[in-house]
């Protein structure tokens, strides 16, 4: 019974991730590409992804921009308002590392200086296909597809699997893992 509930929870989480988008000082390039995702050509609703205006209903926080001083506080507040378990995706070169604005005054630079980031999607801006790829990889990491025994041996160690900034990489942070585990525990009880 408890196993079924966990399965249903994971299934629901993976099949309908509601995303909230916050621009923390981006140039609009990434933001417009995110909006383009919702329109007929890319149409991410086929993955159950829905853009949600309220942080309290969202599972995934998509952050664009280099995080300005004025936005940093607000970004943290939005993250705090989201229910557990929550995931953060940094979209674009600025959100990954500060990009071209690194070192300017008023710029904190990089979302990971404020929040724990699960997935980095580099690019200036990343193509919509890259954003879809990143979000789908994040979803797959939550519920890894069953692998054959042979391929398991070829798996790369975790550190090497995440060359920062090179490709879209997904990292499930220990905190998030812990929360998912706790949830499973509580369901068992």
């Amino acid at each position: 019974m408890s196993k079924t509930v966990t399965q249903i929870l994971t299934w629901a989480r993976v099949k309908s991730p509601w995303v909230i988008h916050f621009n923390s000082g981006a140039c609009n390039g990434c933001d417009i590409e995110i909006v383009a995702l919702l329109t007929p050509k890319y149409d991410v609703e086929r993955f159950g992804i829905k853009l949600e205006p309220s942080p309290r209903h969202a599972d995934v926080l998509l952050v664009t921009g280099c995080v300005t001083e004025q936005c940093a506080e607000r970004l943290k507040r939005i993250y705090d308002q989201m229910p557990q378990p929550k995931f953060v995706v940094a979209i674009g070169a600025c959100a990954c590392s500060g990009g071209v604005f690194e070192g300017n005054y008023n710029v904190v630079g990089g979302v990971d200086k404020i929040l724990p980031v699960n997935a980095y999607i580099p690019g200036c801006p990343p193509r919509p296909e890259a954003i879809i790829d990143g979000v789908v990889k994040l979803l797959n990491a939550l519920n890894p597809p069953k692998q054959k025994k042979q391929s398991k041996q070829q798996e790369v160690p975790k550190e090497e699997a995440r060359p920062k900034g090179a490709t879209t990489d997904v990292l499930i942070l220990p905190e998030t893992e812990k929360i998912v585990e706790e949830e499973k525990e509580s369901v068992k009880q």
Partner: protein
Amino acid sequence: MSNSKIDLVNAIKSSFNDKVQIQMGQLGTAAINASNDLLREVLKVLLRADEKTGITAITGVDLGVNIGILYHIHASNAFLTIRTEVPKENPKIQTISDLIPGAVFHELEVSDLLGVVFEGNPRTGHFVLTENWPEGVYPLRKDVKANEIKLNPSPKEDTKPPEIGKLVKIIIGPQHPALLEPEKFVVTVDGEIVTKVEPRIGYVHRGIEKATETRTYIQDVYLVERICGICNACHAYGFVSAVEKILKTEIPERAKYLRVVTLELNRLHSHLLTLGHAALEIGYETLFQYFWRDREPIMDLIELTSGNRVYASLMTIGGVRRDLKENDFPRIQKTLEELKKKLPFYRQIYEKEPSIQARMKNVGKLTREDAIKLCVVGPVARGSGYDIDIRKDDPYEAYGEIPFKKIVYTDGDTWSRQNVRMDEVEESINIIQYALNHMPAGPIRAEVPRNVLAGEAISRNEAPRGELFYYVKSNGTAFPERVKVRTPTYANIPSFLKTAVGENIADVPPNFVSLDPCFSCTDR
């Protein structure tokens, strides 16, 4: 046309004789050196001589002992720059916002970033910088290093619910479903009627103007391009054309036409984007999806011509970086033809659809007089019958040779502003098709000297949202001394503060989006 240019300068000459120095052909039509106390008198003469006199931008430059303040003034057919200086020790100057109401925010920016006090300006406090900015530190002064600024601890945000009274404050932003970008607008309502709108910008302020001073000219082309992800080609063009003016470089004919194609593709995708956004704001999601569906082929064309969907990165000092292949022309023509065929459908929706009529007609009315007084630009001005279009008024690149219409609507409401954009989509298609059919052969890039000599120049171009203004000052080194950007949305904000008052709170989103606001441009 040239008569009125000389008329204005002559009017100043006859009124002030030797008290002001006039340098013809510098920083626009002429640069006028006036002392601090004569500034207002010069402006009064200009305002009397030409009804369309308004302010484009105010630039502050750190000159060492003094702070130079440059008032960039536009008139019917002329563009003047009035130079004045204030001592750094006691930087005080009288406001001009009582003469030109559109100057309020321009003055506020200079006082925030350079510490000049404009006596008599109705607004005070931070507008671009954060609330916890250290006192007495002005980022655009030369003695301030970008990486040495330490902010005060951030003040606690007021989370108390507003008091229930007759007037209620509704806070829109920084994170709000209707805003794609983080900005704050505090709307005071009496029942359903808006009585006041207070803007707070600066959430996207990345200090780009300061950053340009620490990067080389070529690096700056890519940096200023990233001021805005929508009208990026216009920003890159504004910067390179100002530098080319300092270098006195003439670019090849083919490069001029290629630049026009890039700028117009930029306008096409930007206009389709905002038309869709406007439909979304009134809850017409189908139309939003339609507009964005038709925008995608344009994005493909930008990718075809430049190699990138968003950042074209085509402009460079002296010309363009990539050539267009002749065998790509048919594909571009075909895509544009297909878009052109769809336009009558959209026009019919705007003419006949009751929901569009109800939400956009007579909403956010801006009269021509107010448009001139508040110095608005672009489709907002043209929707109010104020016919300014830099492409026609002060032709740059190949625009002087290409036939096209200046789109003007006279109603001044949201519906007119969106219709200006709709008609401009068609004009843009015609411009690109003409440019492709008349593309001259030849090189795409001129040889430019490696060193930029000391000098200064301005550049104006018509971005999708209106006039985009660049001022570049070089000091003979590898890095520019000062780069000033005045973006169209910055000039259009005052009009929204005026038109929203007295209207229904529900009309705020469509009215606001009709400005085509872009805050990454505004804040820089």
